[in-house]
């Protein structure tokens, strides 16, 4: 004779069980999403992954470069940027303002930008600048400028290593990495760097600050652009005025 105490109640789908199962399912879904993301990011990067490589490539793709100048050679307006590759404000400009300027003014062929690198912060500035100037000899300076800013390390911590330069150059289509390494210490590179430093002294009156910008009609004297922030709105009126808008 069976008693009620010996009869087992059917296993019910309790809220606690539902919570455990639901949570497990959710963890699996999240794991799959992360797996897909990681797989996607790995497949789109080379063996020497470098932050910002794809973005830099997309931003500059199809825009002419000549030496330290980015943009159509006949562009009517010229912007000069004095920058130190270790300067965090220059980095902010490169990451947050420059993409819009490039999209709205450089890619359209209206503005060309010249980067005059100076290395007053320290040894890593000079090492990075040498690589940029050497890349300029292959008309790829802007790719390296942007990649250095994206991957900028702590000031003079030794972050500009040969492997970083190699990784950055490895993400630039059509660049000869060996030629770049040799050109870093060439007489032509030394001369260009001395030239930028002398230009900076002349244009800033001995008070070096980065980033500093000059703007004007191409082929005519440029004037110092006074900006209160790095917002694109600080640059656009000057461009528009020079473009006669």
């Amino acid at each position, binding site marked *: 004779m069976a008693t009620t105490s010996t009869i087992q109640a059917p296993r019910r789908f309790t*809220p606690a069980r539902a919570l455990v199962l639901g*949570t497990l399912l*959710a963890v699996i879904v*999240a794991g799959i999403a992360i797996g897909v993301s990681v797989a*996607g990011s790995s497949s789109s990067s080379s063996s020497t992954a470098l932050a910002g490589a794809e973005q830099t490539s997309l931003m500059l793709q199809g825009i002419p470069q000549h030496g330290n100048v980015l943009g159509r050679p006949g562009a009517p307006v010229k912007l000069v940027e004095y920058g130190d590759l270790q300067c965090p404000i220059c980095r902010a400009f490169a990451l947050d303002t420059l*993409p819009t300027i490039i999209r709205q003014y450089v890619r359209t062929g209206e503005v060309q930008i010249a980067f005059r690198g100076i290395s007053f912060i320290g040894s890593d500035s000079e090492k990075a600048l040498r690589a940029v100037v050497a890349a300029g000899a292959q008309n790829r300076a802007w790719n390296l400028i942007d990649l250095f800013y*994206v991957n900028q390390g702590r000031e003079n911590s030794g972050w500009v290593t040969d492997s970083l330069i190699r990784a950055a150059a490895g993400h630039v289509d059509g660049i000869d990495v060996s030629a770049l390494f040799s050109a870093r210490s060439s007489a032509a590179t030394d001369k260009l760097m001395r030239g930028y430093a002398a230009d900076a002294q002349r244009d800033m009156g001995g008070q070096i600050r980065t980033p500093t910008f000059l703007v004007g009609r191409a082929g005519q004297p440029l004037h110092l652009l006074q900006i209160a922030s790095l917002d694109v709105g600080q640059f656009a009126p000057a461009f528009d005025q020079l473009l006669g808008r």
Partner: protein
Amino acid sequence: MTELRLRSAIAAFAVAGLGVAAYLTHAHYAGGPLFCATGGCETVQHSRYAVVAGIPVAVLGLLGYVAFLGTTWRGQTAALAGVCVAVVAVIFSTYLLLAQLFLIHAICQWCVASDAIVTILAVLTAWRFVVARRSA
């Protein structure tokens, strides 16, 4: 707090999250500049981590917040669904935050805002589940 109030709070935060995700989605497709005080929004939005299987993360965010809104119906099943959505959202948001910190080396304020909203929603959905279970 009653379940109704908790559901209202969840709906309110989900709408806030929808706003953030909608702004990022618009910026992704329109290609315009992002208002950014942290200085890394463009970097993050253009990084390879901003797209999963061809779908922008901002769009996934939109779907996630719509899912949160969908769990604000009455009842234990909806409360459980809310917890599940929250678990997925918290894990994926944490992954994206770590990617910003250690892989992209840039912080997007909008993503951080979304992370904060997801965290609040996770607390609210867990609380609601407990309340719904007690009142069942």
